[in-house]
């Protein structure tokens, strides 16, 4: 095969003619045609699986549609109902907001703390890294959600351990006051993925900075505050945006832990769970589509706010 042997040719020989600059239009037309062929599946997917459904869901959000009858145009009714007449919607929004606001910072704090401990010259780093990362891979699965339901059940592991100390624990997942807390804990448990991103970020900080600071007499805390944190802000920002987007869409955990109902007393009725119940249990597809659009706006809004706020705290320094 000729094209295998060329790989060893001296580089200079190949570069010149191809980069000549005067490509014939015939050639570029051929290239464009090839490109569109390579992209064909993606284009079809974009149209049929993504863009088409986006517009369809926008349209549906203004209708009353149950899959059985024709969609009926109702204008903004779905959106108005949501915010004025549907306490379950509002409570799902509240539950999800609490979940995101509490669990994301906690998770990132854990991730950063562990990354700092693991970063500098510690033996067995890769083993620790793997152990802490494993829950991130498993965390979204039904099996782990089932485990959680059992660990925090009235007669679960947590209460069995507590009873050794003579404490009678509540039925965590069955108690509206603590059910959401167990899901937050599950999310925090998966801190390994952002931890790895933090570790990669810490690697980028030149150690000469620390050495110089140490020479100038800066202590541990001072170095952390003035070097590590500022240089890490882009990574913190990246993780924050990613986790907020992701956790707003959490579904499996709440579904399994609450037995598909969001209970007790709607305390684990995540936004996406309510959307699922509306759209695919009571077949109010127009309403579900409207909820999806509100979710899109919330996520887009939060991401935009994150980006705007980042100007004030994210430090790009000499990396630009």
């Amino acid at each position: 095969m000729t094209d295998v042997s060329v790989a060893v040719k001296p580089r200079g020989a190949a570069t010149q003619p191809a980069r000549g600059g005067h490509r014939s239009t015939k050639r570029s037309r051929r290239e464009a045609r090839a490109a569109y062929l390579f992209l064909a599946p993606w284009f079809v997917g974009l149209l049929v699986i993504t863009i088409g459904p986006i517009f369809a869901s926008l349209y549906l959000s203004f209708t009353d549609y149950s899959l059985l009858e024709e969609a009926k145009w109702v204008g903004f009714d779905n959106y108005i109902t949501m915010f004025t007449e549907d306490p379950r919607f509002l409570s799902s929004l509240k539950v999800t907001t609490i979940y995101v606001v509490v669990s994301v910072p906690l998770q990132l704090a854990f991730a950063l703390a562990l990354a700092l401990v693991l970063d500098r010259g510690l033996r067995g780093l890769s083993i620790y890294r793997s152990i802490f990362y494993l829950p991130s891979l498993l965390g979204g699965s039904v099996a782990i959600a089932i485990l959680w339901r059992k660990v925090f059940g009235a007669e679960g592991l947590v209460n069995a351990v507590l009873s050794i100390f003579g404490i009678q624990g509540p039925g965590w997942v069955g108690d509206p006051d603590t059910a959401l807390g167990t899901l937050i804990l599950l999310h925090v448990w998966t801190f390994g993925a952002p931890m790895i991103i933090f570790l990669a970020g810490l690697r980028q900080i030149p150690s000469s900075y620390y050495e110089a600071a140490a020479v100038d007499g800066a202590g541990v805390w001072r170095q952390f505050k003035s070097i590590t944190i500022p240089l890490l802000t882009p990574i913190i920002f990246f993780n924050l945006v990613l986790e907020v987007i992701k956790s707003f869409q959490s579904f499996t955990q709440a579904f399994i832990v609450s037995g598909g109902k969001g209970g007790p007393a709607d305390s684990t009725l995540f936004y996406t769970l309510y959307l699922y119940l509306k759209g695919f249990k009571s077949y109010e597809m127009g309403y579900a589509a409207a909820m999806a659009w509100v979710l899109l706006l919330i996520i887009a809004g939060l991401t935009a706010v994150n980006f705007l706020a980042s100007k004030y705290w994210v430090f790009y320094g000499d990396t630009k």
Partner: protein
Amino acid sequence: MATPSRPIPVLFRPLKGGRLVKHTLLIGFGLVMLYPLLWMISSSLKPEELIFREPGLWPSQVTLENYTQGWYALKHPFGYYLWNSAVVTALSVVANLVACSLAAYAFARLNFPLKKFWFAIMLGTIMLPHHVVIVPQYIMFSELDLINTIWPLVMPKVLATDAFFVFLMVQFIRTLPRELDEAAEIDGAGYWRIFIRVVMPLCMPALATTAIFTFIWTWNDFLSQLLYLNNPDNFTVPVALRTFLDASSDSSWGPMFAMSIIALGPIFGFFLAGQKYLIRGVATTGLK
């Protein structure tokens, strides 16, 4: 690039004793983290009545009864659901590898009108919440009479809608020296040939990352499988596991844990085999 040989800054160069404390704390913390998992494994091996009574990990009595019971507890033996999951997952992996690498090659190496525009659209779809499109997608697949088939699960992968992976591979291909393509081109190779013979073989790390993550995500995926598979005859593992909760009272933990362990098995296997790619994939792209 990481510089492994860099000196350890003063900040984190503690006394020898300090290091011991650090390791002890880390190991302790790791154990606490893994405790629920280990407990599930140990519980799956305990006779039913001991699960509650022993929060400890070491089973005083080992039995495989939970596994045999759980295997036959649902409508079909559990292997049936494992097979269904395996089919969906294998097709998804192959589809993602082919479709995403085709698109990535075009974005990374070829010039065409509106390239920047399409690339921006592609990036935009990464951020799009899945829920915005599930209602119309469901309606579409239901109109096409494809509910209770694997098509709604596999079709999106065939059509490269996991833009994450397109992006991942674009980034990777961009790091490959262009001279290789150009040399092959001078030798008369067409784009297809360059893609197959030159670019793809060099893309192995990116392809491995894509394959492993697609495997794990598809295997774990619950929402789409819950939506599209309503008939116990084509349930996959996550949907089947879930029926344990409906069907069984809280007394049959053992079998449920046993099947949960089996469900996690393949992920755990891929984790052990592909750690390097997994860690790198997360570190460089934020895939997780």
